[in-house]
């Protein structure tokens, strides 16, 4: 349980100036600002990337791969998130973007269109035959999976045991490329073009799988400067590009939701982490057992608003809607192929989802009870206004840090002021108090720098 957690984000200490914007926005209270630097509580971070979105100094660095790092590999297939198709101005078709990827150093590029349709059907088929605890929770957003593993470990068995479209697409693309080139599948490198760093977590940690079919991920924002001119080249060359994307594939990129193809009366579609937290809390209380499936996404507007996208998510969403209208409406699904592959279990996860609860307050129940008493005792002496000046996002979180030995009570400006006033009140000599307050104040300034 004390295993270390892989994270797709790190803080650049030379760029961070301790402004606390990330600390305030973190939905799992996984950031503290100490000595003017943001630090991560590794057992709480779910890699959602909200900190990247708010940081104006680029001090939160996603650990995705560099677009130039693939040239020396045998064979690379780029697999773009459908969100990529929404990032470019003008009527750039997915086919054009795929061709531009092939011209930018990738040996091939493959879409998620078949796998998005296939996985949607796989969900329908799985739900029609499911009688376990309800509702099932979608497992395609890696931040949601990690949130369940960390904060709702009692719900891990309700994570949907169906592979994500990106994994199905990567597996199929590797098989195809292997058949075409004669290279063994393990020398074919599948690169996901990702709208968020969290996909790195699903590659490295591969929850629900023995290993991910995807080998690495490149952020859309990193690829953008390379891809934009390559797209213009494809457009001006006048070359005809085949269109293989479908309307179904694009639906996965933005917040219309997957259950639009599932029975609406007993599925829910939830967007944005505050809402996801609320729905998981309700599931935990046994409130939602009449629903069969809950689709949860960490980002409010879906993958088009991921931390590594470049376009305004609402513009991206409108573009996705326009693109959907122009693309093939029918999914490219051969129903027999789909059913055969489903029967073979090809869309099922291959390992259980692990639980990863944070370290409890004490090593056993007696110790935990003592720590909880201490924590509530400290919290009762705090102002309860969650000002954040101590470097923790809430007074409760601060009290927990104090109990854990990570912070001192005097780090709270209110506690410190009370302590100083009490000390001054003990020495009521006229004149002396004012002088002493002056020295104390200067000393506290020094502490901070």
């Amino acid at each position: 349980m004390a295993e270390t957690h892989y994270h797709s984000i790190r803080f650049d200490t030379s760029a961070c100036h301790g402004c606390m914007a990330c600390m305030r926005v973190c939905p799992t209270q996984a950031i503290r600002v100490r000595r003017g630097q943001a630090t991560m509580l590794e057992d709480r971070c779910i890699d959602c990337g909200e900190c990247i979105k708010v940081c104006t100094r680029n001090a939160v660095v996603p650990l995705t791969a560099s677009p130039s790092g693939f040239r020396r590999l045998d064979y690379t297939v780029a697999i773009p998130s459908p969100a990529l198709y929404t990032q470019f101005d003008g009527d750039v078709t997915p086919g054009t973007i795929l061709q531009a990827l092939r011209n930018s150093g990738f040996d091939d590029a493959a879409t998620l269109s078949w796998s998005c349709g296939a996985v949607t059907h796989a969900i329908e088929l799985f739900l029609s035959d499911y009688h376990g605890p309800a509702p099932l929770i979608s497992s395609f957003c890696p931040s949601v999976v990690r949130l369940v593993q960390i904060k709702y470990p009692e719900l891990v068995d309700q994570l949907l045991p169906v592979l994500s479209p990106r994994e199905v697409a990567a597996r199929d693309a590797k098989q195809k490329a292997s058949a075409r080139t004669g290279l063994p599948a393990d020398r074919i490198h599948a690169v996901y073009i990702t709208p968020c760093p969290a996909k790195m977590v699903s590659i490295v940690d591969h929850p629900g799988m023995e290993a991910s079919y995807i080998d690495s991920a490149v952020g859309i924002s990193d690829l953008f400067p390379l891809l934009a001119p390559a797209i213009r080249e494809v457009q001006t060359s006048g070359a005809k590009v085949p269109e293989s994307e479908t309307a179904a594939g694009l639906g996965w990129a933005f917040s219309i939701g997957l259950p639009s193809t599932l029975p609406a009366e007993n599925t829910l579609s939830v967007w944005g982490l505050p809402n996801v937290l609320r729905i998981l809390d309700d599931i935990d209380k046994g409130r939602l057992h009449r629903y069969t499936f809950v689709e949860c996404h960490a980002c409010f507007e879906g993958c088009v608003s991921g931390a590594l996208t470049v376009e305004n998510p609402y513009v991206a969403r409108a573009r996705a809607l326009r693109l959907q209208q122009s693309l093939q409406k029918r999914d490219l699904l051969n129903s027999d192929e789909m059913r055969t592959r489903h029967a073979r279990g090809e869309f099922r996860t291959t390992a259980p989802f692990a639980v990863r609860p944070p370290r409890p307050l004490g090593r056993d129940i007696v110790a935990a009870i003592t720590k909880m008493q201490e924590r509530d005792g400290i919290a009762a002496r705090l102002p309860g206004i969650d000002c954040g000046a101590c470097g923790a996002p809430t007074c409760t979180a601060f009290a927990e840090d104090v109990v854990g030995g990570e912070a001192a009570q005097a780090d709270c400006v209110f506690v410190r002021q009370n302590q100083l006033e009490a000390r001054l009140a003990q020495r009521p000599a006229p004149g002396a108090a004012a002088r002493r307050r002056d020295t104390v104040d200067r000393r506290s300034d020094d502490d901070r720098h």
Partner: protein
Amino acid sequence: MTDAEFVRAYEIVGADFTNAGRASTGIKEALKDMGLPSALIRRVAIAAYEAEMNLVMYARRGTMTLHVTPNDVTIDVRDEGPGIPDIQLAMQEGYSTATPAMREMGFGAGMGLPNIKRNTDELVVTSEVHRGTTLLMKVHVG
């Protein structure tokens, strides 16, 4: 050694549906922070939520007090409200006095008290009509 006890009380206001559910969430979070087993937390969470909603729906005000010892998790629920005239009847599955408005909100399937009983190891309900109701629910640790 075993006299360690963590106590935390929550004030609950009748008909406050905006904040309804916060006490049971707080209880659940506290148990998670203490590292109690998931299955136990889930049972307590469901029982606490049912009790909290009963209180919000029927009573004027009340308190829920969480007690955690190394042996038990106990929740003591006390309200000022109409009371339950026939506790035996109220314990039957499907029996409900919920108004149509409560049913519209998804409550009143007559599952409240039976659901609490199912998810606890001990449950004592006492009630005085026109005065209030107390629930003492206990789940054994380990």
